Protein backbone atom coordinates (compact mmCIF):
# COMPACT_ATOMS: atom_id res chain seq x y z
CA UNK A 1 0.00 0.00 0.00
CA UNK A 2 2.82 2.39 0.93
CA UNK A 3 4.54 1.57 -2.36
CA UNK A 4 1.40 2.45 -4.23
CA UNK A 5 1.11 5.72 -2.34
CA UNK A 6 4.72 6.67 -3.04
CA UNK A 7 4.27 5.89 -6.70
CA UNK A 8 1.14 7.99 -6.87
CA UNK A 9 2.77 10.90 -5.06
CA UNK A 10 5.82 10.77 -7.29
CA UNK A 11 3.64 10.69 -10.36
CA UNK A 12 1.71 13.74 -9.24
CA UNK A 13 4.92 15.68 -8.76
CA UNK A 14 6.46 14.47 -11.98
CA UNK A 15 3.42 15.28 -14.04
CA UNK A 16 3.35 18.71 -12.46
CA UNK A 17 -0.16 18.21 -11.18
CA UNK A 18 0.88 19.40 -7.76
CA UNK A 19 3.64 21.59 -6.34
CA UNK A 20 3.72 19.97 -2.93
CA UNK A 21 3.02 16.60 -1.45
CA UNK A 22 1.80 16.51 2.13
CA UNK A 23 1.87 13.16 3.83
CA UNK A 24 3.42 11.26 6.68
CA UNK A 25 6.94 9.96 7.18
CA UNK A 26 8.36 7.90 9.99
CA UNK A 27 9.14 10.05 13.01
CA UNK A 28 12.31 10.21 15.02
CA UNK A 29 10.80 8.46 18.02
CA UNK A 30 9.28 5.04 18.38
CA UNK A 31 5.69 4.79 17.18
CA UNK A 32 5.75 8.30 15.89
CA UNK A 33 5.21 9.82 12.49
CA UNK A 34 5.88 13.29 11.28
CA UNK A 35 4.29 15.37 8.55
CA UNK A 36 6.26 15.26 5.32
CA UNK A 37 5.87 18.40 3.25
CA UNK A 38 7.94 18.24 0.13
CA UNK A 39 8.41 19.25 -3.49
CA UNK A 40 11.12 16.67 -3.92
CA UNK A 41 10.29 13.64 -6.08
CA UNK A 42 12.79 11.50 -4.22
CA UNK A 43 11.60 12.43 -0.75
CA UNK A 44 8.17 10.93 -1.34
CA UNK A 45 9.87 7.54 -1.03
CA UNK A 46 9.66 8.03 2.72
CA UNK A 47 5.86 8.33 2.79
CA UNK A 48 4.25 5.87 5.19
CA UNK A 49 0.81 4.66 6.23
CA UNK A 50 0.53 3.06 9.64
CA UNK A 51 -1.67 3.27 12.75
CA UNK A 52 0.42 6.17 14.10
CA UNK A 53 -0.37 8.82 11.50
CA UNK A 54 -2.00 11.03 14.11
CA UNK A 55 -1.74 14.55 12.69
CA UNK A 56 -4.55 16.20 10.81
CA UNK A 57 -2.73 17.26 7.66
CA UNK A 58 -5.51 19.56 6.49
CA UNK A 59 -3.84 22.15 8.72
CA UNK A 60 -1.05 22.61 6.20
CA UNK A 61 -3.37 23.31 3.27
CA UNK A 62 -4.02 26.86 4.38
CA UNK A 63 -0.29 27.50 4.76
CA UNK A 64 1.05 26.21 1.46
CA UNK A 65 1.02 28.15 -1.78
CA UNK A 66 0.15 26.51 -5.10
CA UNK A 67 -1.36 23.11 -5.70
CA UNK A 68 -1.04 20.47 -3.04
CA UNK A 69 -1.38 16.71 -3.11
CA UNK A 70 -2.48 15.60 0.33
CA UNK A 71 -2.66 12.19 1.95
CA UNK A 72 -5.98 11.98 3.72
CA UNK A 73 -7.54 9.70 6.27
CA UNK A 74 -11.22 10.08 7.00
CA UNK A 75 -10.69 12.86 9.52
CA UNK A 76 -8.28 14.79 7.29
CA UNK A 77 -10.73 14.60 4.43
CA UNK A 78 -13.59 15.87 6.57
CA UNK A 79 -11.47 18.82 7.61
CA UNK A 80 -10.56 19.46 3.98
CA UNK A 81 -14.23 19.50 3.04
CA UNK A 82 -14.88 21.92 5.84
CA UNK A 83 -12.08 24.17 4.59
CA UNK A 84 -13.57 24.08 1.11
CA UNK A 85 -16.94 25.12 2.55
CA UNK A 86 -15.25 28.08 4.21
CA UNK A 87 -13.45 29.09 1.02
CA UNK A 88 -10.10 28.53 2.66
CA UNK A 89 -9.09 25.96 0.08
CA UNK A 90 -9.96 25.75 -3.58
CA UNK A 91 -10.97 22.20 -4.42
CA UNK A 92 -9.31 22.39 -7.85
CA UNK A 93 -5.98 23.28 -6.26
CA UNK A 94 -5.72 20.13 -4.23
CA UNK A 95 -5.38 16.48 -5.08
CA UNK A 96 -6.68 14.31 -2.27
CA UNK A 97 -5.04 10.93 -2.01
CA UNK A 98 -7.44 8.95 0.13
CA UNK A 99 -5.95 6.29 2.35
CA UNK A 100 -7.77 3.63 4.35
CA UNK A 101 -7.72 3.91 8.12
CA UNK A 102 -8.70 1.29 10.60
CA UNK A 103 -8.16 3.53 13.57
CA UNK A 104 -5.07 5.06 15.13
CA UNK A 105 -3.38 3.61 18.16
CA UNK A 106 -3.46 5.78 21.27
CA UNK A 107 -0.04 5.15 22.80
CA UNK A 108 -1.14 6.71 26.08
CA UNK A 109 -3.72 3.94 26.41
CA UNK A 110 -1.15 1.31 25.47
CA UNK A 111 1.29 2.73 28.02
CA UNK A 112 -1.32 2.54 30.73
CA UNK A 113 -2.36 -1.00 29.84
CA UNK A 114 1.13 -2.45 29.70
CA UNK A 115 2.58 -0.26 32.42
CA UNK A 116 5.50 0.87 30.30
CA UNK A 117 6.39 4.07 28.51
CA UNK A 118 6.42 4.00 24.74
CA UNK A 119 10.19 4.00 24.44
CA UNK A 120 10.32 0.87 26.56
CA UNK A 121 8.04 -1.02 24.21
CA UNK A 122 9.63 -2.92 21.32
CA UNK A 123 6.76 -3.17 18.90
CA UNK A 124 3.13 -2.28 18.48
CA UNK A 125 1.16 -3.41 15.48
CA UNK A 126 -2.45 -3.41 14.38
CA UNK A 127 -3.73 -6.37 12.41
CA UNK A 128 -7.09 -8.02 12.04
CA UNK A 129 -8.84 -6.09 14.75
CA UNK A 130 -6.16 -6.82 17.31
CA UNK A 131 -3.24 -4.78 18.56
CA UNK A 132 -0.11 -6.72 19.37
CA UNK A 133 2.38 -5.25 21.80
CA UNK A 134 5.86 -6.72 22.13
CA UNK A 135 8.01 -6.02 25.17
CA UNK A 136 11.27 -7.89 25.57
CA UNK A 137 10.11 -10.66 23.24
CA UNK A 138 6.88 -11.00 25.21
CA UNK A 139 3.78 -10.61 23.06
CA UNK A 140 0.54 -9.17 24.43
CA UNK A 141 -2.64 -8.91 22.41
CA UNK A 142 -5.00 -6.06 23.15
CA UNK A 143 -8.48 -5.54 21.73
CA UNK A 144 -8.74 -2.43 19.56
CA UNK A 145 -11.55 -1.07 21.74
CA UNK A 146 -9.01 -0.59 24.46
CA UNK A 147 -6.17 1.00 22.54
CA UNK A 148 -7.54 3.04 19.66
CA UNK A 149 -8.12 6.75 20.16
CA UNK A 150 -11.59 7.57 21.46
CA UNK A 151 -12.06 9.72 18.39
CA UNK A 152 -11.31 6.71 16.18
CA UNK A 153 -13.64 4.44 18.09
CA UNK A 154 -16.46 6.85 17.47
CA UNK A 155 -15.47 7.54 13.86
CA UNK A 156 -18.22 6.99 11.33
CA UNK A 157 -16.10 7.42 8.22
CA UNK A 158 -12.53 6.29 8.85
CA UNK A 159 -11.69 6.37 5.17
CA UNK A 160 -11.70 9.50 3.11
CA UNK A 161 -15.04 10.17 1.44
CA UNK A 162 -13.80 13.10 -0.57
CA UNK A 163 -10.82 12.05 -2.67
CA UNK A 164 -9.31 12.07 -6.15
CA UNK A 165 -7.50 8.78 -5.90
CA UNK A 166 -7.78 6.11 -3.27
CA UNK A 167 -4.94 3.87 -2.19
CA UNK A 168 -6.00 0.37 -1.19
CA UNK A 169 -9.38 -0.66 0.16
CA UNK A 170 -11.47 1.69 2.27
CA UNK A 171 -11.26 0.69 5.93
CA UNK A 172 -14.18 -0.63 7.89
CA UNK A 173 -16.20 1.67 10.06
CA UNK A 174 -14.99 1.71 13.59
CA UNK A 175 -17.81 3.93 14.73
CA UNK A 176 -21.11 3.18 16.30
CA UNK A 177 -19.56 1.55 19.32
CA UNK A 178 -20.81 4.33 21.50
CA UNK A 179 -17.37 4.81 22.89
CA UNK A 180 -16.04 8.25 23.48
CA UNK A 181 -19.42 9.53 24.59
CA UNK A 182 -18.91 8.10 28.06
CA UNK A 183 -17.02 11.07 29.37
CA UNK A 184 -19.70 13.47 28.19
CA UNK A 185 -22.41 11.40 29.84
CA UNK A 186 -20.39 11.39 33.02
CA UNK A 187 -20.07 15.15 32.90
CA UNK A 188 -23.72 15.64 32.10
CA UNK A 189 -24.72 13.65 35.13
CA UNK A 190 -22.95 16.17 37.35
CA UNK A 191 -24.55 19.33 38.68
CA UNK A 192 -23.75 22.62 36.96
CA UNK A 193 -21.50 23.62 39.85
CA UNK A 194 -19.62 20.34 39.69
CA UNK A 195 -19.12 20.71 35.97
CA UNK A 196 -17.77 24.22 36.35
CA UNK A 197 -15.47 23.02 39.10
CA UNK A 198 -14.30 20.18 36.86
CA UNK A 199 -13.39 22.48 34.00
CA UNK A 200 -11.83 24.98 36.36
CA UNK A 201 -9.48 22.27 37.57
CA UNK A 202 -8.71 21.16 34.04
CA UNK A 203 -7.92 24.64 32.80
CA UNK A 204 -5.85 25.50 35.84
CA UNK A 205 -2.98 23.56 34.36
CA UNK A 206 -3.25 25.00 30.85
CA UNK A 207 -0.04 26.82 29.97
CA UNK A 208 -1.43 28.46 26.82
CA UNK A 209 1.01 26.90 24.43
CA UNK A 210 -1.81 27.11 21.87
CA UNK A 211 -0.87 23.69 20.51
CA UNK A 212 -4.61 22.87 20.34
CA UNK A 213 -5.23 25.90 18.17
CA UNK A 214 -2.13 25.50 16.06
CA UNK A 215 -2.86 21.91 15.03
CA UNK A 216 -6.55 22.53 14.45
CA UNK A 217 -7.42 22.79 10.75
CA UNK A 218 -10.58 24.68 11.64
CA UNK A 219 -8.53 27.39 13.38
CA UNK A 220 -7.49 29.24 10.26
CA UNK A 221 -7.88 32.84 11.44
CA UNK A 222 -4.87 34.91 10.59
CA UNK A 223 -5.14 36.56 13.94
CA UNK A 224 -6.78 34.89 16.89
CA UNK A 225 -8.94 36.86 19.32
CA UNK A 226 -6.56 36.03 22.15
CA UNK A 227 -3.89 38.06 20.43
CA UNK A 228 -6.09 41.10 19.98
CA UNK A 229 -4.94 43.94 22.14
CA UNK A 230 -7.60 46.55 21.48
CA UNK A 231 -9.67 45.39 23.24
CA UNK A 232 -7.73 42.78 25.09
CA UNK A 233 -10.37 40.07 25.33
CA UNK A 234 -8.35 37.73 27.45
CA UNK A 235 -5.16 38.18 29.40
CA UNK A 236 -2.04 36.66 27.84
CA UNK A 237 -1.37 35.16 31.27
CA UNK A 238 -2.47 31.54 31.63
CA UNK A 239 -4.88 32.13 34.48
CA UNK A 240 -7.60 29.50 34.54
CA UNK A 241 -10.34 32.02 33.90
CA UNK A 242 -8.73 33.21 30.71
CA UNK A 243 -7.68 29.72 29.67
CA UNK A 244 -11.26 28.59 29.98
CA UNK A 245 -12.59 31.54 28.01
CA UNK A 246 -10.01 30.91 25.31
CA UNK A 247 -10.99 27.30 24.91
CA UNK A 248 -14.74 27.86 25.12
CA UNK A 249 -14.65 30.62 22.55
CA UNK A 250 -12.33 28.60 20.35
CA UNK A 251 -14.85 25.80 20.43
CA UNK A 252 -17.74 28.09 19.63
CA UNK A 253 -15.78 29.76 16.84
CA UNK A 254 -15.10 26.41 15.22
CA UNK A 255 -18.60 25.07 15.75
CA UNK A 256 -19.67 23.51 12.48
CA UNK A 257 -16.07 23.41 11.32
CA UNK A 258 -14.72 21.12 13.99
CA UNK A 259 -14.93 17.54 12.78
CA UNK A 260 -14.01 16.14 16.18
CA UNK A 261 -10.80 14.67 14.81
CA UNK A 262 -9.23 14.79 18.25
CA UNK A 263 -6.00 16.46 17.17
CA UNK A 264 -6.29 19.10 19.90
CA UNK A 265 -6.60 16.60 22.70
CA UNK A 266 -3.73 14.50 21.36
CA UNK A 267 -1.25 17.34 21.39
CA UNK A 268 -2.17 18.91 24.71
CA UNK A 269 0.99 18.60 26.80
CA UNK A 270 -0.93 18.91 30.05
CA UNK A 271 -3.64 16.37 29.20
CA UNK A 272 -6.75 18.53 29.18
CA UNK A 273 -9.66 16.39 27.91
CA UNK A 274 -10.45 18.69 25.01
CA UNK A 275 -12.44 16.11 23.12
CA UNK A 276 -15.06 16.26 25.83
CA UNK A 277 -15.63 19.76 24.47
CA UNK A 278 -15.35 19.14 20.75
CA UNK A 279 -17.46 15.99 20.87
CA UNK A 280 -20.15 17.79 22.82
CA UNK A 281 -20.08 20.67 20.36
CA UNK A 282 -20.47 18.32 17.41
CA UNK A 283 -23.35 16.67 19.22
CA UNK A 284 -25.04 20.02 19.86
CA UNK A 285 -24.61 21.14 16.28
CA UNK A 286 -26.11 17.97 14.97
CA UNK A 287 -28.99 17.92 17.49
CA UNK A 288 -29.95 21.55 17.13
CA UNK A 289 -29.29 22.23 13.49
CA UNK A 290 -29.01 18.78 11.97
CA UNK A 291 -25.58 19.71 10.70
CA UNK A 292 -22.50 17.57 10.43
CA UNK A 293 -19.18 19.22 9.77
CA UNK A 294 -17.11 18.17 6.78
CA UNK A 295 -19.65 16.01 5.03
CA UNK A 296 -20.94 18.20 2.22
CA UNK A 297 -18.58 20.49 0.41
CA UNK A 298 -21.43 22.35 -1.26
CA UNK A 299 -23.35 23.09 1.92
CA UNK A 300 -23.05 26.58 3.40
CA UNK A 301 -21.06 26.78 6.64
CA UNK A 302 -23.14 26.27 9.78
CA UNK A 303 -23.00 29.80 11.08
CA UNK A 304 -23.87 31.49 7.81
CA UNK A 305 -26.91 29.33 7.20
CA UNK A 306 -30.27 29.36 8.93
CA UNK A 307 -33.75 27.94 8.88
CA UNK A 308 -36.72 30.25 9.34
CA UNK A 309 -37.65 28.49 12.51
CA UNK A 310 -35.14 27.01 14.90
CA UNK A 311 -33.91 27.15 18.48
CA UNK A 312 -37.37 28.31 19.50
CA UNK A 313 -37.14 27.05 23.02
CA UNK A 314 -33.92 28.98 23.67
CA UNK A 315 -34.95 32.43 22.61
CA UNK A 316 -38.17 34.03 23.64
Amino acid sequence: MEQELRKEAKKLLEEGKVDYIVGFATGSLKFSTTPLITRDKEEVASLVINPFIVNNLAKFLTQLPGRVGIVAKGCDSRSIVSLIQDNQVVRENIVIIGVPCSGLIDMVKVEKLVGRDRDEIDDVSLKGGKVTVVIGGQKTELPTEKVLFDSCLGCESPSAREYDTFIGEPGKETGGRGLGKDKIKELESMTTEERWEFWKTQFSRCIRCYACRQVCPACFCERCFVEESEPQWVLPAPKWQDNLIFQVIRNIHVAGRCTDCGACERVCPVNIPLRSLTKKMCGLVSEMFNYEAGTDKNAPPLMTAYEYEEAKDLIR
Partner: protein
Amino acid sequence: MERKPEWEPTIVGFLCKWCSYAGADLAGTSRKKYPANVRIMKIPCSGRVDPLLVLKGLRLGFDGVVVSGCHPGDCHYQTGNYRARRRIAITKKFLEYMGVPEERIQASWVSASEGDKFARVVADTTKSIKKIGPNKLFAGNGR
Protein backbone atom coordinates in the same frame (compact mmCIF):
# COMPACT_ATOMS: atom_id res chain seq x y z
CA MET B 1 -35.11 47.49 62.98
CA GLU B 2 -32.88 47.80 59.99
CA ARG B 3 -33.39 45.28 57.27
CA LYS B 4 -30.54 44.14 55.08
CA PRO B 5 -31.29 45.27 51.55
CA GLU B 6 -31.97 42.48 49.11
CA TRP B 7 -29.10 41.60 46.77
CA GLU B 8 -29.59 43.14 43.36
CA PRO B 9 -28.00 41.51 40.33
CA THR B 10 -26.24 43.52 37.66
CA ILE B 11 -27.08 42.45 34.16
CA VAL B 12 -25.55 43.55 30.89
CA GLY B 13 -27.91 43.86 27.97
CA PHE B 14 -26.75 43.85 24.36
CA LEU B 15 -29.60 45.44 22.45
CA CYS B 16 -29.95 45.87 18.73
CA LYS B 17 -30.27 49.56 17.97
CA TRP B 18 -33.01 49.06 15.37
CA CYS B 19 -35.49 47.32 17.62
CA SER B 20 -34.76 46.23 21.17
CA TYR B 21 -32.95 49.42 22.04
CA ALA B 22 -35.94 51.37 20.81
CA GLY B 23 -38.14 48.91 22.68
CA ALA B 24 -36.25 49.67 25.87
CA ASP B 25 -36.64 53.34 25.11
CA LEU B 26 -40.37 52.89 24.66
CA ALA B 27 -40.61 51.02 27.94
CA GLY B 28 -38.99 54.06 29.54
CA THR B 29 -41.01 56.78 27.82
CA SER B 30 -44.28 54.95 28.43
CA ARG B 31 -43.31 54.70 32.11
CA LYS B 32 -43.36 50.92 32.26
CA LYS B 33 -42.00 49.71 35.54
CA TYR B 34 -39.14 47.25 35.30
CA PRO B 35 -36.14 46.45 37.50
CA ALA B 36 -33.19 48.78 37.12
CA ASN B 37 -30.71 45.93 37.02
CA VAL B 38 -29.85 46.02 33.37
CA ARG B 39 -26.93 48.02 31.93
CA ILE B 40 -27.65 48.58 28.28
CA MET B 41 -25.10 48.36 25.48
CA LYS B 42 -26.37 49.57 22.13
CA ILE B 43 -25.18 47.36 19.29
CA PRO B 44 -25.77 47.70 15.56
CA CYS B 45 -27.43 44.29 15.21
CA SER B 46 -27.87 41.18 17.31
CA GLY B 47 -25.63 39.54 14.72
CA ARG B 48 -22.82 41.59 16.24
CA VAL B 49 -22.95 39.57 19.43
CA ASP B 50 -19.90 37.38 19.43
CA PRO B 51 -20.06 34.76 22.16
CA LEU B 52 -16.92 36.50 23.38
CA LEU B 53 -19.05 39.45 24.50
CA VAL B 54 -21.22 37.13 26.53
CA LEU B 55 -18.29 35.47 28.25
CA LYS B 56 -16.47 38.73 28.76
CA GLY B 57 -19.59 40.04 30.46
CA LEU B 58 -19.56 37.12 32.85
CA ARG B 59 -15.81 37.43 33.34
CA LEU B 60 -16.20 41.07 34.31
CA GLY B 61 -18.62 40.00 36.96
CA PHE B 62 -22.04 40.70 35.50
CA ASP B 63 -24.58 38.34 36.99
CA GLY B 64 -26.39 37.86 33.73
CA VAL B 65 -26.26 38.68 30.06
CA VAL B 66 -29.25 39.61 27.94
CA VAL B 67 -29.06 39.63 24.18
CA SER B 68 -31.97 41.08 22.33
CA GLY B 69 -32.64 41.67 18.65
CA CYS B 70 -35.32 41.99 16.03
CA HIS B 71 -37.87 39.27 15.54
CA PRO B 72 -36.89 36.66 12.95
CA GLY B 73 -37.65 38.09 9.53
CA ASP B 74 -37.41 41.71 10.69
CA CYS B 75 -33.65 42.22 10.68
CA HIS B 76 -32.54 45.58 9.34
CA TYR B 77 -29.73 43.73 7.61
CA GLN B 78 -31.94 40.88 6.39
CA THR B 79 -30.25 37.94 8.12
CA GLY B 80 -28.26 39.26 11.07
CA ASN B 81 -30.63 37.93 13.68
CA TYR B 82 -30.85 34.51 12.07
CA ARG B 83 -27.13 34.19 12.44
CA ALA B 84 -27.24 35.56 15.94
CA ARG B 85 -29.84 32.95 16.76
CA ARG B 86 -27.60 30.01 15.88
CA ARG B 87 -24.66 31.52 17.65
CA ILE B 88 -26.51 32.36 20.82
CA ALA B 89 -28.31 29.04 20.94
CA ILE B 90 -25.00 27.22 20.69
CA THR B 91 -23.36 29.51 23.23
CA LYS B 92 -26.15 29.01 25.71
CA LYS B 93 -26.17 25.25 25.38
CA PHE B 94 -22.43 24.91 25.35
CA LEU B 95 -21.92 27.12 28.37
CA GLU B 96 -24.58 25.17 30.18
CA TYR B 97 -22.48 22.09 29.54
CA MET B 98 -19.42 23.89 30.88
CA GLY B 99 -21.28 24.69 34.06
CA VAL B 100 -22.78 28.12 33.51
CA PRO B 101 -26.41 28.08 34.64
CA GLU B 102 -28.71 28.67 31.69
CA GLU B 103 -30.46 31.51 33.52
CA ARG B 104 -27.38 33.69 33.21
CA ILE B 105 -27.70 34.02 29.47
CA GLN B 106 -31.04 35.18 28.12
CA ALA B 107 -31.97 35.91 24.55
CA SER B 108 -35.12 37.48 23.28
CA TRP B 109 -36.69 39.16 20.30
CA VAL B 110 -38.05 42.57 21.14
CA SER B 111 -39.33 44.94 18.50
CA ALA B 112 -39.35 48.71 18.73
CA SER B 113 -43.03 48.65 19.65
CA GLU B 114 -42.70 46.04 22.38
CA GLY B 115 -41.88 48.16 25.38
CA ASP B 116 -44.02 45.80 27.39
CA LYS B 117 -42.13 42.78 26.34
CA PHE B 118 -38.81 44.41 27.13
CA ALA B 119 -39.98 45.24 30.61
CA ARG B 120 -41.14 41.64 31.01
CA VAL B 121 -37.85 40.20 29.75
CA VAL B 122 -35.87 42.29 32.21
CA ALA B 123 -38.19 41.51 35.07
CA ASP B 124 -38.13 37.77 34.39
CA THR B 125 -34.39 37.68 33.90
CA THR B 126 -33.78 39.62 37.09
CA LYS B 127 -36.07 37.31 38.97
CA SER B 128 -34.47 34.14 37.71
CA ILE B 129 -30.98 35.44 38.35
CA LYS B 130 -31.92 36.47 41.86
CA LYS B 131 -32.93 32.90 42.40
CA ILE B 132 -29.54 31.48 41.45
CA GLY B 133 -27.56 34.19 43.22
CA PRO B 134 -24.52 36.28 42.33
CA ASN B 135 -22.13 35.29 39.57
CA LYS B 136 -19.12 33.75 41.26
CA LEU B 137 -18.02 31.79 38.22
CA PHE B 138 -14.74 33.56 37.64
CA ALA B 139 -14.16 34.58 41.21
CA GLY B 140 -11.19 33.33 43.13
CA ASN B 141 -8.71 35.86 42.08
CA GLY B 142 -8.84 39.00 40.11
CA ARG B 143 -12.25 40.25 41.10
